[in-house]
């Protein structure tokens, strides 16, 4: 749509427009990392994006009772909202998907709790609280030990049982990126 014609512009124009290389309307405002911080919350399967901080299952258990139990039930076994503990075997195509029987990456648990839970007050938890709740749910599901500390180094190393059971529907549409191939 826009031709990259800036090479033909007089040098003076080019110098004035150092940060505006595209020939479009250029109405975006430069964004610094500091300005983005509150939104910059994607956590990737290799741990990229995990913040500083840590938490344990014992700490998480107390937070859970206060902030999560009224929806997800006692011991996280399910209430008006989904069970967060338990791994019923997947025996049919409509089997319930749980953290322990289905979720491929432990990092998704941290990411989702931090961005979306508790349902009525998302983003009200500190990063330490999110680590603690993540540790609590992983420990309740016997995916880590009761005493294991979850932090940016430990969490991505937790191997989820169902991790290798996924494939893309259209492999040809999957980006190819060397070692990060899925």
């Amino acid at each position: 749509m826009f031709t990259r014609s800036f090479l033909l512009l007089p040098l003076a124009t080019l110098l004035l427009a150092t940060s505006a290389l595209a020939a479009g309307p250029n109405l975006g405002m430069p964004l610094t990392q500091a300005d983005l911080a509150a939104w910059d919350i994607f956590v990737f399967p290799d741990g990229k994006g995990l913040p500083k901080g840590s938490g344990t299952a014992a700490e998480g258990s107390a937070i859970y009772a206060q902030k999560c139990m009224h929806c997800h039930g006692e011991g996280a076994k399910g209430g008006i909202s989904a069970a967060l503990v338990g791994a019923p075997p997947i025996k049919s195509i409509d089997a319930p998907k749980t953290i322990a029987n289905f979720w491929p990456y432990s990092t998704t648990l941290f990411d989702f709790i931090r961005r979306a839970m508790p349902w009525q007050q998302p983003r009200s938890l500190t990063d330490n609280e999110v680590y603690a709740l993540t540790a609590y749910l992983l420990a309740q599901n016997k995916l880590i030990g009761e005493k294991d500390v979850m932090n940016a180094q430990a969490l991505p190393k937790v191997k989820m049982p169902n991790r290798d059971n996924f494939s893309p529907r259209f492999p040809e549409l999957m980006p190819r990126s060397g070692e990060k191939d899925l």
Partner: protein
Amino acid sequence: MKDLVPAAGNGLYDRRAFLRGGAALAAAMTGYSVKAETLTDPVWSNEPGTLVPPYGTPSKYEKGVVRTLSNPDFEPRNSHARTPHHLLHGTVTPNGLHFTISHGGNAEIDPAQHRLAIHGLVKRPLVFTAEALMRYPTVSRFTFVECGGNSAPMFSPEPIQASVQALHGLASCAEWTGVPLSTLLEETGIDPKAKWVIAEGADSQRLSRSVPLAKIMDDAMVALFQNGERVMPGQGYPMRLLLPGWEGNMNVKWLRRLELAEQPAMSYYESRTYSQILPNGKAFRFYFIQEVKSYITRPSFGVELKGPGFYEISGVAYSGNGKITKVMVSADGGKSWAEAALQEPVNSKSFTRFRAPWEWNGGPAVLQSRAWDDQGNVQPTRADFVAKRGEAAKVPSPLAFPNQHFNSITSWAIDANGGVRHVYA
């Protein structure tokens, strides 16, 4: 009468009857058997009407044409509103009837405060106001949006008796206008390491999905307008990501952030919710494309026949792969097929209305439609589909999602009274 060329068994006529002499056809077949009543002036013809309102709404007699709600009391869970296909016609879904799924309710966004940030593996991270985006060159296109869970009740081992709204109401079609994402990424520049774009909404769930960069550069847009007016709150006001033909949930609403990355985020919705369990216990992840599908909207469950005679069989067909090239219709449960007329223009990745002239003789009939797209894909029969993808263990609630991405043929059986039942044929 020479225009009425039989095209398939049990009363299906050649689709060209519409083009050559639709009126003659209808006259010939209905036979003018009932005498008209004497015409008089009704009250609305003899007095002034009502105030012309600033924003028009449908006639009060159309109150029943509404979406059905899965969570009418707004309990703390997701909410679905389904499009009443059986009460609509044409190829465009009115904005108030476009299906909506919200995982945390509809965000109520002040457009003056909304921002779209593009960052990550770009040369210049940029943030845009909604007002700034309105000044960019725009494009318009018709495209459908369909939830990956649409048609899920058809995974039931027995046919669920429910309308086309309940079965297939999580798909709609609109004309979307917005800014191609390639334009914005030209301004940010792209680091050659970038392979994925992770999109995030400004809703309370900060719903996020990973999209291959190639799709973003191909035909993705930041949609600002829906059928000519600003995008509805339930569609992501003031802006949504539009990925023509791809799974609805990926078309992130209330779009506020795009991060370019080397890897996908494996967000909750892609790694759990919209990953599809297969009969062997493994799962498809990153399904992306909503595959070729069609269903008859009239007659259909709840849209009954009023005695033998002429009917237009009509429905919608669409494919996330491209254009619909052919729809075949059967009135005998798939024993014989007639080609349906397709409404022009046929748009890529868009609802295509099909029609077939049919004379119901009052006997048993099973109506089916089957669609083909320009990439060589054909809509599967239900038997073929469930042989590969499986069936639910028990009959589920029509509101449940036993599995995803169902696209096989729907069958409507007509009984002697003109009633319509959902059957597997």
